[in-house]
């Protein structure tokens, strides 16, 4: 952790000015952040807390209201747009429709900050484009038209385009927003590999807490008043900062799942002892909770579940097959008509 920071926020107040000569609205106050080479930083926070404002300020799309943002130790405001573009690349959420352009020529746009106004291509450009295509895993798509690709592929191409800028800092705005679970995991793996191969600091905003906590070296938690808390993901989760920030009524931070879940609304007195082992036990407890009961070791009611697909279960002499039937049985035998079931998120 002794490496020199590539991106630094020092005493930054961030916000926006809706109209000229109107007082600015400060969204974030006195922010101090440091990103080092090779770090994966996740920016998390509830909607409207100021994630976008923070990112826009860090990439220089809007000036900080006070304080300084340093890129390689130089004030972002003092760099020319081209100088900045050689050190800092972004990937936005907004979809792009460039019309007829091949993947390779879209990625080659990332070389713009290095080119003369005539746009003559140099050997460096070609090798940087080749490397970016390979790093983002889209080398085989190079000759395809961008408009023919799937959303996931298109996003990887935009990642390659950002990499072609050979940035020291790569900022991604909600890269997981439109991706399914498999594509998310793929992207996470690609990003983690990139921090190692390119040595760039990658800063991304995300709504996916599990992703942020499992993969990030550092989490910047935006929310809870106009503050930004920077820390290791475990510190934020264990210390309860994430729970405070996200959990509203009827919500709790689930440590095992590393995400915020709907709080259990167990009916008082409805407890059951689960007799099972391993994964069966985990899912049996899940079913018990879903039925509105609380698993408890010293309960008189015993729920015994044996593995199998579907599983077999016994509750107070009643036997059945499958978790669905178990939940139905538990709800019925509890017989509390007024109980509100809050479904799992």
């Amino acid at each position, binding site marked *: 952790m002794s490496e020199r920071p590539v991106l630094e926020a020092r005493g930054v107040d961030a916000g926006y000015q809706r109209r000229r000569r109107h007082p600015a609205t400060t969204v974030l106050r006195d922010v101090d952040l440091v990103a080092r080479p090779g770090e994966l930083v996740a920016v998390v926070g509830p909607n409207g807390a100021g994630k976008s404002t923070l990112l826009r300020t860090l990439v220089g*799309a809007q000036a900080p209201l006070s304080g300084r943002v340093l890129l390689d130790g130089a004030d972002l405001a003092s760099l020319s747009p081209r100088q900045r573009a050689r050190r800092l690349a972004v990937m936005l959420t*907004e979809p*792009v*429709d460039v*019309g007829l352009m091949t993947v390779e020529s879209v990625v080659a746009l990332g070389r*713009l*900050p290095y080119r003369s106004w005539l746009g003559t291509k140099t050997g460096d450009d070609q090798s940087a484009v080749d490397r970016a295509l390979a790093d983002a895993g889209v080398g085989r798509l190079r*000759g395809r038209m961008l408009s023919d690709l799937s959303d996931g592929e298109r996003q990887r191409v935009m990642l390659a*385009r950002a990499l072609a800028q050979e940035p020291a800092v790569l900022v991604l705005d909600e890269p997981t927003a439109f991706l399914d679970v498999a594509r998310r995991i793929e992207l996470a793996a690609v990003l983690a590999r990139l921090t190692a191969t390119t040595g760039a600091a990658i800063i991304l905003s995300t709504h996916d807490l599990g992703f942020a906590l499992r993969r990030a070296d550092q989490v910047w938690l935006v929310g809870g008043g106009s503050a930004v808390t920077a820390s290791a993901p475990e510190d934020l989760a264990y210390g309860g900062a994430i729970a405070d920030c996200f959990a509203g009524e009827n919500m709790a931070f689930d440590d095992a799942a590393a995400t915020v879940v709907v709080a259990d609304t167990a009916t008082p007195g409805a407890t059951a002892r689960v007799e099972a082992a391993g994964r069966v036990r985990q899912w049996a407890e899940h079913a018990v909770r879903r039925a509105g009961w609380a698993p408890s070791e010293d309960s008189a009611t015993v729920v015994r579940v044996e593995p199998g697909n579907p599983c077999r279960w016994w509750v107070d002499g009643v036997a059945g097959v499958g978790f669905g039937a178990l939940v139905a049985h538990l709800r019925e035998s509890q017989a509390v008509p007024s109980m509100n079931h809050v479904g799992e998120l």
Partner: protein
Amino acid sequence: MSVSAEQGTRRRVGYVAGLFVLLVVLVVAVVVVLITQGSVAIPVGEVIRVLTGQHVESEITRTIVVDARLPKVLAGLLAGAALAVSGVQMQTLFRNPLAEPFVLGVSSGAVLGAAIVILGAGGAGWLAGIGVISRIGVTGAAVAGAGAVLLIALGIARKVGDPVVVLVVGVMLDYLATALVDLLIYYTDPDRLQALTTFRRGSVRNVTWDELEIIAIACAVVLGLSVYLAQPLNALLLGERYATSLGVNVRRVHLLSLTGVAVLSGITTAYCGAIAFVGLAAPHLARGLLRSADHRLVLPASALIGAVVVLVAEYVAGGNGLTRTSLPLNSVTAFVGAPVILWVLLSGRARRRGR
């Protein structure tokens, strides 16, 4: 790079080069036809002798070539190129595949500007006395009118975003400008109206060498500028935020490009009238043929295609008395332009482009 990828690249370069050669050949062919053919046919050899200043048998030949046909052909060539280049830039700036000087009312804005100067200028003898200078005044007014409509249209386009709505707004701006011109005409002395009629229908037939000089200089400057703009415009294809992140000064590119478009469409309108749809059709044809949206290729290809379209339209419309008709250029270019608009609308590209 793998062997097959390298082969693909080489084949692609060959295709693009071949396409440009073909377009240049087409332009030259149309130019030759329009100079040599007509009510009086002149052999190519004679034309070359006239142009190189050698002795020609009859002075009439020289007059026909130098004073009648050549200015017209050059004006058509430049107007076509200018409109096409304007169209490409507007389509990228507006993020709208239907943007074009004529469709968005920019040409009508130019006519309005010119009409205000022509009809509103005090003193009757303005045209007879100081032809070129007053022409420049009219040209300036046309450019200003074009620029004003461009600014309004872009302002609305940035707010609305939906290309089809922007198209309707353009049509409204067009009506408004035309209505203002009608109003001016209604309250003006009929003697001055003659000067305005050429403005209102596209025609390259009355262009003189003096005028051509102005068109040529302006076109050369602005077409040169668009070479410089090609790369930033490519970045703008990704959207303004991406372009900014690539170190492009978006405001400056907008300003330069809009000024260029205003000058090109203002000047072509001032001298050749409002020629419709070339600025729309040529860029789409260029992109389709090139299979690319790269402005470094699309800008020059569109310029060549625009020139060909205007010259062919001039041939069909009955320039030189080649066909038995005498139509305004617009009636011919509409046959190229209207199908392109329909194709763009129906293929759904207009919708998808919306932000």
